[in-house]
């Protein structure tokens, strides 16, 4: 039995999170090395990995609503923005222009997720009324309406072009802003954000995996594949679409609450149309309807500027770039990746990984 990893003798085994010991071993190794990362890697890499993890969380959210439940959402960035601003108001410092309550992280972290969930649930009846492209276009409207609110509610956001400070990092009464010395290591603020992101990423990632193998996830897939058939099978479309939007915006809100504590400030212009599109692109590049896909996509998207910088330096042009500067090259490459993944590998990076894995599983036999 042990020699046949793809042979399952019961359903429980087949739907388990890690079907083989091999996977358990690698996941454990990844966990241990992730927790050791801030002690080994430089702060630049910690920052990049933290951003990747948070963007992965937000992308999982979009993947739940679009990848699993099949409801097109082009306005996911708005939910990230709601999470950001709820956390900034509850955890941030009040100034003459903006409000802030300096609450503990243990309060603002869940609340920012729940606030986004609430908005998501309020908006979900729209998805029960509309479907397909029309739903996508309405969510596109959401982006513009959202940015209008963000730039005009000046007492919350500080207004367009100015912005405000993000939430302060106080956890259970301990102020983490200044950093804490542990033995020979100084754990900085970003290291703590890294740990929080890592823990959230593990929990929420397992959450997504569990959704896919539970009743809700199966209902989502049924709705995605054919909503009318799903309804005929007794799935309450209204209820499950509400679940999908609620879960999705919860993920977005949680990611948003931490995402801008890294840089310390947030400007309403960040939540533009491109920002929302980025999440769609990450899910597509990573792999729609998979758990690992958005994680791959998020890491790829965050590392892309670094890779391009490194390549430019390798060619000896540095920051000057060729005709375009690095930021523009990054955007062009990103656009090309969207186009080429859709044309050549609709299953995304996960699809490439899947084929690679199967190739080596059967090695040296290629069939």
């Amino acid at each position, binding site marked *: 039995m042990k020699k046949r990893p793809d042979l399952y003798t019961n359903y429980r085994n087949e739907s388990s999170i890690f079907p083989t010991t091999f996977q358990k071993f690698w996941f454990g190794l990844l966990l241990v090395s992730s927790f050791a990362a801030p002690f080994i890697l430089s702060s630049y890499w910690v920052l990049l990995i933290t951003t990747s993890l948070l963007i992965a969380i937000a992308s999982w959210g979009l993947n739940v609503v679009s990848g699993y439940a099949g409801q097109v959402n082009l306005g996911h960035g708005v939910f990230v923005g709601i999470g950001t601003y709820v956390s900034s108001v509850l955890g941030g410092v009040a100034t003459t222009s903006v409000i802030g309550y300096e609450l503990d992280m243990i309060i603002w972290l869940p609340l920012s997720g729940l606030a986004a969930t609430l908005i998501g649930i309020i908006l979900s009846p729209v998805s029960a*009324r509309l*479907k*397909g*492209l029309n739903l996508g*276009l309405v969510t596109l*409207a959401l982006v513009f309406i959202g940015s209008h609110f963000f730039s005009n509610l000046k007492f919350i956001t500080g207004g367009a072009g100015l912005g405000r400070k993000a939430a302060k990092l106080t956890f259970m009464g301990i102020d983490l802003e200044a950093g804490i010395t542990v033995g020979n290591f100084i754990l900085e603020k970003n290291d703590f954000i890294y740990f929080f992101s890592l823990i959230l990423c593990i929990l929420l990632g397992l959450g997504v995996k569990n959704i896919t193998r539970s009743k809700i996830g199966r209902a989502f897939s049924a709705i995605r594949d054919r909503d009318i058939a799903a309804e005929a099978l007794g799935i309450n479309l209204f209820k499950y679409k509400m679940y999908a939007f609620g879960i999705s915006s919860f993920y977005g809100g949680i990611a948003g609450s931490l995402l801008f504590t890294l840089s310390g400030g947030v400007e309403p212009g960040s939540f533009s149309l491109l920002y929302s*599109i980025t999440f769609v*692109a990450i899910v597509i590049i990573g792999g729609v309807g998979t758990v690992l896909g958005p994680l791959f996509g998020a890491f790829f998207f965050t590392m892309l500027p670094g890779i391009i910088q490194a390549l430019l330096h390798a060619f000896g042009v540095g920051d000057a770039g060729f005709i375009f500067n690095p930021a523009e090259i990054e955007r062009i490459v990103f656009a090309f990746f969207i186009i080429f993944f*859709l044309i050549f590998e*609709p299953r995304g990076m996960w699809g490439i990984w899947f084929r690679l894995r199967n190739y080596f599983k059967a090695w040296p036999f290629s069939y």
Partner: protein
Amino acid sequence: MTIFLQATFEGLSLGAIYSLVAIGFVLIYKATDVLSFAQPALAVVGAGIISGLAVDRGVPFWLALIIGIVFTGLIGLLVERTFLRPMVGEPVFSVAILTIGIDILLRTILNKWIGIDPRYLGDPFPSFGNFGSFDVSGVTLKYLEIAALITALVLIGILGVFFKRSKYGIAMRATSFDQEAALAQGINVGRVFGLVWLIAGILAGFSGFFITGGFNTLTQASFVSALRALPAVVIGGLDSIAGAVVGSLIIGLTQGYIAYYQLPLESIVGFTLGSGFSLIAPYLVMFIILLIKPDGLFGTKEVERV
């Protein structure tokens, strides 16, 4: 009353501009089942070419205008040939996202060229004074806005005749009805796809000129104005050309009226709606209309089979 007429006139001319982009959207959607998010990008690319030729290179304005618009059409054709032809038969949503990729691509290259300073598009009638205007009993009529109205009317008229009378117009209608049946009747569906994108590109080029012409100028944010044709299409129904025109007029008028009547409106509702509310009002209108009529005002209801 003067304000009302002024708002109506400006709204109508805006609506006319939007209708050009909107018809492009609808044509592409009907014939090729693609919702092209790249249309706004095409519009600003057209404006960029005109500006580059007329202002930077000193080409006579009319020549620059024609070259710019034709080039935009050709870019549309090129996009269809290279990126969208492999996607025929793929899910509608995947292709829509692909056009977002094209949109990002085109706009990044264009934004690089535009830079920070706004670009002017040149002046066809210097003797009238830089895109001037004249007054009719207190209502200021800009030449550019009148030109937009007339151009839109003429182009819609030409398109109407084209669909009714010409061989390719009829082929296009057949293709939009059923692609495979059209293919079986000997219609070159691939060529129809290309032609549709060419026409949509040309329309986008015209609208790009009117959106960014005169004192509007071409900036990195100009595409947002062209994107506002999207709610217009949705209001009218994605597959109805008449709907696109009506939707565009609704959107244009909404925007015009809100721009002029925001202050009185705010005093009625009792709270401020925020600066730039007229720019997002179209999206709110779309939101409300879609909730009432999910297929738009003139869209055909999709028949679904399990």
